[in-house]
Every structure is written in C-alpha cells, then in structure tokens.
C-alpha cells in the first residue's frame, strides 16, 4: 500500500508539470487557434538555462532570468508561427511549430550539450508521512500548478487583456473589426504561456533531469492533459495533467517503465477519437 501512495505522490508531482504545459497549450489555442508543438521546448530551455546560469549566480535569480529569457523566445516563436502580417493559416502555423521544435533540439544540443541536467531542489529533506516520502519540491510543483490554474482563469475571465484573447478565438473577424490586432494577441498568449511553461521546466529539473531532447515528451504529455478538456478548458487540463501523471506512475511502478510515453499517446488518441465527432477539430 505504501508503494501505491508513493507512486500517487510522485504522479501528482509529475502530473503538475503536464498540467502546467497543458494549460499553456490551452491558453495559446484559445487565443490563436494554434496548437504549439514547440511548447515543451520552453520547459527544457528554462531548465537548462537555470542550470547554466546557476553556476554563476544564486539559483533563484538564475530561475527568474531563465523564465524571462524563455518568455522572450516564446514571443519570437509567436511572430514566426503567426507570420508578420498575422495571416498564416492555423494548419500552417501548427506545422511551423513542429519545425521549430525539431530545430530547437539541434540548437539546444549545440548550446548545452547532451548530458541531462539537474540542480538542487527547494529543500533536500523529504517529509516522511506514514512511510510515504514527499519531497518539498513536489508540494511546490502542485501548488504552482493550482495557482496557475486559478490565475489563468481569472486572467481570461476578468481582465480586459484576457477577454481580448478569448474574443480573438471566439471570432477573429469581429476581433479585427473592433480594432484588435490578431498578431499582438498571439504574442501576448505565447509570452504568457511561454513564461508559465518555463516555470514548470525550472521546477521540474530538480526532480527529473532535463536534456535537449526532453521537449517532445513534455509536449506530448501536456497535449494529452489539454485534450481532456478539448484544448478549451483550463480546469480540465489541470485535472487531466494530474490524472495522467498518476496513471503513468502506477504503470511505471507496477507494469513497466517503458510504457511511460505510450500511455500519454493512447490517452490522447482515444480522447481525440472520442471527441472528434463533437467540438474538437485539431
């Protein structure tokens, strides 16, 4: 039984990262209609940057800097994906983000090398709760994911900038007619989502070392979490992330660690197949 709870605790922690990436994907999709397949790259970039910068300065400062740099990179990705005139079709944008993800692996490999990197967590001492070890880092990840969900929901519902993002997805034509600039809207969405995913990556690296090639699996897991809510719901992406994290850990613990990514893919395909009769049209 202890093993079970231990796996659940770890699952919620890794699931928080899936949730964070999933919510980022939802934000970008809701505002621009684009599925950003380079989203996981932002987590890797932020993690590796924190490691490299951390050698020259305090870790918290390195983490903040890495997050800011990643947000700037995300705005550049937005401009490339959406196009200078903002008239690239959604399908073309999606393919551009796939290309960026592939290119990014090469760039990250050249810049940071191939060794997976990790650094110290918020605290080295784990809490022992009835035989189940809980790393403080897990708690931080879970709290950050919850806070991000609440924050994003409030942002989209109650701020004029958030409402402008939703409006651009609801009706791009009307959004343009009232004077909103769709490219600016895309840039805000990518920047906010990029910063959020970066925070996820920064917090992930101490528990699971990240390497140049980790981006794809992070994207796939995040996408599987987001698909639970049809790429439209922040809340369901959060729940989807937790559920996926726990199921993956249980399979890793009781069946075979190799099945890790396959689960995310199966969840994704089943949900897309099930939902494709309805609202989801990716």
């Amino acid at each position: 039984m202890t093993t079970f709870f231990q796996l659940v605790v770890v699952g919620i922690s890794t699931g928080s990262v899936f949730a964070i990436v999933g919510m980022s994907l939802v934000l970008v999709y809701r505002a621009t209609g684009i599925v950003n397949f380079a989203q996981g790259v932002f987590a890797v970039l932020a993690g590796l940057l924190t490691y490299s910068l951390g050698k020259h300065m305090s870790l918290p400062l390195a983490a903040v800097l890495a997050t800011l740099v990643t947000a700037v990179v995300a705005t550049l990705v937005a401009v490339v994906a959406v196009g200078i005139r903002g008239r690239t079709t959604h399908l073309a944008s999606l393919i551009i983000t796939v290309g960026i993800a592939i290119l990014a692996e090469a760039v990250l490999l050249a810049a940071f090398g191939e060794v997976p990197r990790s650094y110290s967590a918020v605290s080295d001492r784990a809490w022992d709760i009835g035989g189940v070890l809980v790393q403080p880092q897990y708690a931080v990840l879970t709290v950050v994911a919850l806070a991000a969900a609440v924050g994003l929901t409030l942002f989209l519902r109650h701020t004029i900038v958030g409402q402008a993002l939703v409006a651009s997805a609801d009706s791009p034509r009307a959004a343009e007619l009232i004077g909103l600039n769709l490219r600016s809207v895309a840039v805000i969405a990518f920047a906010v989502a990029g910063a959020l995913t970066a925070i996820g990556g920064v917090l992930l690296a101490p528990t699971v070392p990240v390497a140049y090639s980790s981006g794809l699996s992070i994207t796939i897991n995040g996408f599987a979490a987001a698909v639970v809510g049809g790429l439209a719901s922040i809340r369901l992406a959060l729940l989807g992330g937790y559920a996926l994290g726990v199921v993956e850990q249980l399979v890793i613990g009781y069946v075979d660690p190799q099945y890790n990514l396959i689960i995310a893919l199966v969840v994704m395909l089943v949900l897309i197949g099930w939902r494709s009769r309805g609202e989801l049209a990716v």
Partner: protein
Amino acid sequence: MTLLELDHLVVRYGQAVAVDGISLTVGAGERVALIGPNGAGKTSVLNAVCGVVRPAAGRVRIDGRDLTGATPAAVVRRGISQVPEGRHVFATLPVEANLLLGAYGRVFSLEIVSSTLRYVRSRREVRERLDRVYELLPKLHELRDRPAGRTSGGEQQMVAIGRALMAEPRLLAIDELSLGLAPVLVQQLAEFLLRLNEQGVAILLVDQSASLAFSLCERAYVLETGRVVLEGPSGDLAGRSEVRSAYLGGASGGPS
C-alpha cells in the same frame, strides 16, 4: 464635409472581380443604403472600407483623408465601426465584456501595455459610454452577465450594435441588419437606428431587403455585379418600375 467617400473602388479576390469601380459618398449624419442581390459586392465594399480587404484600385477617403488599405484599427479610430453580417458576437464572453471590448479595441495598438493603460485610464469615460449604450438598449443591461452566445438572434444583433457603439463611431456600417430576424424585431432595430441617427451618427446600411433600406435611409445605391446601376433618394428609387420588380416583389413596399 463628406464623411466617407469611395472613389472608383475595385476589389478583387484572385481573378474574380467583386467590386468593379464603385464611387459613393456618405455625409456626416446621413442615412445611406446599399442594396442589391447576393454577390453584387455589397459586403466587399464594406470590407474595403473597414480595412479587412485591400482594394485593388480606387481610393477610400474618410473626412477627405486617404485611408485606402489602412488597418481595421485605424478605420475604427477614424470613427467608422462595422456591425458584421451574422453578428459575430464573442460567444463565450458575457454581454458586458463584448461591449467593453468595443471600447478597448478602439485604443488597442501593437503595444499592448500602453494601450491597456490608456483603456484603464479612461475607465470612467468607458463606464459612462456603457451606461449610455444600456440606456439606448435596455435589454443588454438585463443580459449583461449572460454569455453572448446564449442569447437570441435579435439580442445578438443588439450586442453587435452595442459593441460597435462603444467605439463612439460617427458612421455605423451595418451588414445585413434583417438577416434571420423576425420582422417585428427588425422594425424595433430600425426605429432604434433612427433614434441613433438623430444623435448625429451616420448610417450605412447594407441589406437585401430593399423595403427596409428605403424606409430607413434617405438615399440608396443599387448594386449589381460589382457596379452601381442606380442611385438617388429612396423615394425616387422605390417608385421606379425596374427596382419595384427586382427588389420589392412587384406592387408591395415603398417608403413608409
């Protein structure tokens, strides 16, 4: 002065010519209609005015100033707002957010931080404008918290008009006011537009219903395959036999 002037406007989509050299004017505070069958180029004219499509030739002037090929945002800031065909409300947002975005869109620019600050600083003025829109369309006040997508067709038309009014336009361009709405609703909206016009807002109405266009507007242009085939005061046009047979279904209609 002429508020809006189109000078030999041409709009092409690839090889297809949608608008083939149309010239028209709308004066300040005037009510003008564009009528014609499907595919006559009415919506393309509005899209060229509002900066959604770039004209292949010709000029769009607002207050005598050349705004050919300007962005939609620039046209909104110059005082022309469009109510698009099919309403296009922001379906998942509450009615009130739909309206407020109309005011935000007017101050929006590439620089989000400064445009948001500009919007927040004018908060009180935006609030007053919102109250005026609620006064004009009290129904919207009742519905303010409901997602716009969950209101009726007539209510959505009011949301779309209210949203356009939040940008304080001097000219309201309306694409297909009557489409899909019950006649009694169309009548109410037409009366509302007349009241709005009394406050000085010019109206450019695009509609397939010539009887509505003639009863609401002082002047009209009749479009066919991208050209103006007839123009003049609504009363004169409604009396012409070719217009009666083509658009008014024989003997019915005419100005009320």
